[in-house]
């Protein structure tokens, strides 16, 4: 049996290679998704931690517990707590990188024994921190001895410089507590042995209990425990803090849920719940989960069409295989083989292909996920940022599912075919039915469904952007609508295709050659068997185009939006020192920093002063105010530095600036003034700056967009609903404002040189020791936008989907082409025998491929364009950030299309080569013999 199978496989090796390719691609794609997701989530989580660290300055992954125990129970509670706390990390499922325990007695009054005049009463915090010896550097004096008690029975302590200055201690000074006594009833005394500072400034050891750093008199930790919490301890009320810091690199995405659950348990179920402090840690994790859910839902939805295509490919090829082996199966069957034997034959074949496919597919999938992780833009990779890929349980599960589907696609049809004997086969062949979908009008139904989706989404696009604000993920229906549309339109094309051919035939009838005649007839009557490949072609091309457009559009719009929002390449505003009066009190007037230094910005091609006041207003009636943003510009310089895309504004950008330049009292105002407050060109507006000083300007024009201007501000109300408010902007002359209001803090808007480097900017800022109130850098912001995990993931999945579809499309088409030639070798032999020239057979096949192949390609392109046109705008809404300002623009990159066409062209050329080879090898007498077997 095994031998038969191997023979069979060898005989149809091209078929089997294609099946294997399908298996490999399916496994690789399926496996790469969870792998990619896992590593993308890890990176996302890591970024969250790093972000927290960078913005907040505190260690992001820390659990801490603080408690103050009263005098009586202090010691015993501490014992229990310490035991309990030591188990917390393992309860959370983490190993701490650093654990800090710190204890201190609550403030106690004491006096220096030196009877100093300048210090009367001291409030002392006596404490101990675990492992403090390794975290301090002595500045003066020395560290306490091991026991911490000197020969005179004094406790040895060290203090920070802050504490020393605050308490006015001297090193070597002895302090006695007023009310605290030792076991013998003598007053408790301590000596200041030394002054320390943290050994390392970035040491997070001091973060959990940093009050001890500034105020604590610190004795050895063990001595403290022995004296105040031990068996015969002196009873005082004690504050305790237990902190564990975890290496955030160790916290991988799959641990997050467990940690959150455990943390929740600690906070609500534990007997020490009131003392648990894991707020920030948990918040970071929860925030991450929110982001992750949105991304994962989106990625899953994006993957579905590709996976469906892959499965369809496998079923298509195996269908072709069964089609070819139909005769053999029925012959074997008629000779007495049982259905079970036939099934087993295919089962073995399926197993061989599936297992081989997985062996190659899994490493390939790992590679895929790395490539996915390094996608920077659609079809662009940046290998420097590849992901760390680890094989997970989830990936194993995906792998098993993929293997199952592969196996099924190869073996399941055997059940149907193993029942067919040669007699049924002949009967079957005789039957020619319309395809089921054609009879049931599935195409029309699908189109109807997708149109319904299209219209309802279009109608509710406001809801959609609201959903984005509240952080919801992509609506699956939205994406499915587009896929359904592609399938529906593809099927509809198949329905009308015979009529198109009929029409062409009708027009060219008179001139049709014998070869043309056959191909017309073939395609008019016999398209059913070609439906699958044609649909496949249509779907791959239109999905490819759609995906390319989605990816490009989403990313480009996000980038454009960021670029617009920033207004200029770089905006700098220094902190202006306030002028002071003779009594050293601030006057509210600002001192202008040296402006000449801006001339030394080598990275700048151009720069200008801009007065930017976002707390300005326009009085309305007697009490009303419209909050506005006010900009004062130098029109010429401003125009050289900024720009607005011509397609989104009515007139050329410079026209607006020129209009303003011509009128010294003129102002350009946002369209919202016209729409909401019915202002007209020529009207005057009196506007006031932050300080209430006003000016009156004449409206010279209304604009829809202006560098940095957001026409609407949207957000979420406390009750969860979303709002979208119109924004107002008035743009006037800088000089006019300066002459009336004096020099006010201005921003410097900069246009960068072509080759300007961020490093140059930083160096310049450093070298001038600038204190900045505002700094925006468009390139940085664009990079940040592009780094967004959702955009990245979308790009990655779409890029891979695109690549996979292209491969499938090429392979599928080639197989179909070869099959359709081999299937008809006998007929070609007959035709050749009857005197048909090779050229004519060539012509006939080319015609056929034009009718099925090129027509499908053309339909695919058309449907792809239509789908993009209809659905990309809706899809984009769901990706738009909450500060989306610009109208959506559909972006298609010609190069993507060229890649797609190029590959299709290459496949078709390859098909031609195959055709020529097959034709030349075709021997008429042999071909005829074929039929005699």
């Amino acid at each position, binding site marked *: 049996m095994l031998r038969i199978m191997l023979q069979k496989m060898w005989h149809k090796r091209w078929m089997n290679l294609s099946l294997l390719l399908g298996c490999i691609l399916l496994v690789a794609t399926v496996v790469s998704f969870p792998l990619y997701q896992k590593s993308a989530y890890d990176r996302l989580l890591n970024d969250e931690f790093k972000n927290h660290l960078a913005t907040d300055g505190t260690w992001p992954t820390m659990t801490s517990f603080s408690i103050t125990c009263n005098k009586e129970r202090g010691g015993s509670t501490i014992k229990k707590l310490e035991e309990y706390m030591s188990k917390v990390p393992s309860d959370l499922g983490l190993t701490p990188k650093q654990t800090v325990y710190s204890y201190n007695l609550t403030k106690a009054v004491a006096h220096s024994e030196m009877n100093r005049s300048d210090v009367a009463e001291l409030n002392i915090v006596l404490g101990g921190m675990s492992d403090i010896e390794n975290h301090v550097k002595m500045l003066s004096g020395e560290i306490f001895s091991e026991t911490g008690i000197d020969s005179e029975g004094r406790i040895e302590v060290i203090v920070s410089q802050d504490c020393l200055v605050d308490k006015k201690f001297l090193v070597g000074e002895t302090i006695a507590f007023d009310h605290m006594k030792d076991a013998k009833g003598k007053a408790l005394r301590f000596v200041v042995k030394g002054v320390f500072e943290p050994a390392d400034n970035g040491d997070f050891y001091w973060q959990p209990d940093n009050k001890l750093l500034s105020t604590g008199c610190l004795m050895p930790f063990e001595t403290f425990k022995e004296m105040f919490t031990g068996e015969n301890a002196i009873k005082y009320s004690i504050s305790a803090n237990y902190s564990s810091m975890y290496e955030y690199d160790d916290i991988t995405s799959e641990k997050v849920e467990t940690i959150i659950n455990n943390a929740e348990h600690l906070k609500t179920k534990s007997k020490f719940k009131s003392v648990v402090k894991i707020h920030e840690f948990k918040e970071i994790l929860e925030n991450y989960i929110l982001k992750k859910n949105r991304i994962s839902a989106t990625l899953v939805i994006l993957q579905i069409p590709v996976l469906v295509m892959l499965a369809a490919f496998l079923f298509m090829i195996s269908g072709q295989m069964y089609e070819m082996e139909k005769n053999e199966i029925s012959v074997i069957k008629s000779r007495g083989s049982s259905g079970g034997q036939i099934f087993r034959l295919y089962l073995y074949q399926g197993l061989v292909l599936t297992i081989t496919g997985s062996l190659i597919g899994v490493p390939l999938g790992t590679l895929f996920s790395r490539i996915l992780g390094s996608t920077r833009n659609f079809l662009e990779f940046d290998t420097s940022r590849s992901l760390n890929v680890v094989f997970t349980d989830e990936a194993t599960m995906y792998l098993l599912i993929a293997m199952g589907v592969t196996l099924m696609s190869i073996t399941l049809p055997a059940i149907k075919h193993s029942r067919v004997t040669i007699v049924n086969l002949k009967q079957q062949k005789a039957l020619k039915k319309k395809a089921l979908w054609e009879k049931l009008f599935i195409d029309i139904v699908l189109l109807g469904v997708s149109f319904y989706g299209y219209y309802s989404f279009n109608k509710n696009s406001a809801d959609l952007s609201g959903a984005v604000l509240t952080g919801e993920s992509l609506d699956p229906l939205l994406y499915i609508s587009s896929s359904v549309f592609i399938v529906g339109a593809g099927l509809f094309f198949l329905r009308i295709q015979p009529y198109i051919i009929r029409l062409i035939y009708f027009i060219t009838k008179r001139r049709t050659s014998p070869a043309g*005649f*056959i191909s017309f007839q073939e395609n008019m009557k016999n398209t059913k068997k070609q439906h699958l490949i044609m649909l496949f072609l249509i779907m791959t091309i239109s999905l490819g185009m759609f995906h390319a457009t989605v990816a490009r559009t989403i990313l480009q719009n996000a980038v454009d939006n960021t670029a617009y929002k920033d207004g200029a390449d770089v905006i700098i505003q220094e902190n202006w020192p306030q002028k002071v009066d003779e009594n050293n009190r601030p006057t509210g007037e600002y001192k202008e920093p040296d402006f000449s230094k801006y001339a030394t910005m080598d990275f700048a091609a151009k720069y200008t002063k801009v007065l930017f006041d976002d707390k300005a207003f326009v009085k309305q009636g007697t009490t009303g105010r419209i909050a506005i943003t006010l900009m004062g510009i130098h029109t010429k310089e401003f125009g050289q530095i900024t720009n607005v895309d011509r397609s989104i504004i009515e007139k050329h950008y410079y026209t607006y600036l020129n209009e303003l330049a011509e009128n010294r009292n003129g102002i350009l105002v946002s369209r919202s003034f016209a729409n909401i407050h019915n202002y007209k060109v020529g009207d005057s507006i009196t506007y006031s700056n932050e300080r209430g000083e006003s000016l009156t300007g004449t409206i010279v024009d209304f604009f829809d967009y202006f560098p940095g201007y957001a026409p609407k501000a949207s957000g979420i109300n406390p009750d969860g609903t979303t709002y979208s408010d119109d924004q107002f902007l008035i743009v006037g002359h800088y000089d006019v404002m300066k002459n009336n209001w004096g020099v006010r803090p201005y921003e410097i808007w900069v246009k960068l040189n072509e080759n300007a480097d961020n490093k140059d900017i930083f160096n310049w800022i450093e070298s001038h020791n600038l204190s900045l109130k505002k700094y925006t850098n468009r390139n940085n912001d664009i990079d940040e936008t592009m780094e967004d995990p959702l955009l990245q993931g979308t790009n990655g999945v779409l890029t891979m989907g695109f690549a996979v579809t292209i491969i499938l499309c090429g392979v599928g088409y080639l197989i179909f082409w070869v099959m359709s030639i081999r299937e008809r070798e006998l*007929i070609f032999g*007959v035709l050749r*025998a009857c*005197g048909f020239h090779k050229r004519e057979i060539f012509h006939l096949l080319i015609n056929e491929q034009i009718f099925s192949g090129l027509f499908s390609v053309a339909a695919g392109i058309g449907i792809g364009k239509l789908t993009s046109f209809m659905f990309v705008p809706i899809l984009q809404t769901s990706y738009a950030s909450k500060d989306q300002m610009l109208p959506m623009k559909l972006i298609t990159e010609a190069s993507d299309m060229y890649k797609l066409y190029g590959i299709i062209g290459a496949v078709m050329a390859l098909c031609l080569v195959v055709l020529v080879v097959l034709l030349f090898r075709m021997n008429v007498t042999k071909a*005829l013999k074929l*039929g005699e077997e």
Partner: protein
Amino acid sequence: MSEPVIKTVNIKRAYDVPGGKFYALKGINAVIPQGTFAILKGRSGSGKTTLMNIIGGLDNPTEGEVYFNGRNMSSLSERDRENLRRREMGFVFQTVSLIPSLNAFQNVEFSIRMAGGKINKESSQRVEECLKLVGLGSRMNHMPQEMSGGEQQRVAIARSLAHRPKMLFADEPTAELDSAMAAKVTELFKSMTRKEGITVLMTTHDVGLMGAADMIIELENGERINAGEEKES
């Protein structure tokens, strides 16, 4: 008897086999006059299909000459031979050889198209005439899949006649038919020679059909064993 349509001179056909050459035909001489119903007889492997392929221009002899209507076939280009085949010859094969996407009428009409004939009323009449001749006048619009093997074979015969070829080759046309149908088809060929003046060369190993032949060429192991039974002209 009139002019010979086919004349072969010492045809040999050798195939390369391991260790030398195998001669499928070892010098065949035959002359088939116009209007003859000739049967090429022999067991399988006797070389009859090879001979027929060579006479029909589908294969080239290793040695010897074939004259079709006085023209030396080996002096013709591939292209000319193909044109000869599509205009002046008709073929019927053992297996079903209809074009699946064409109906009976179109299949028959196709040979007229191939021969370069005009498609018009006249051609349609000819197609109908041929189909009626083979007894399928009422099934002209049926697709090949809707017909039995015998019916399909008769359509194939009609097709081989429609463009009025000089010579008709039929390679085991009755192999897949029952004996009643085989007799009918054979009789049909014979009647063609009478009605249309066509020359027919049919291979068969069915001895029961020999009675219809005007002339029998019998092969055994690549040699003609009844040479000289026909008159040389």
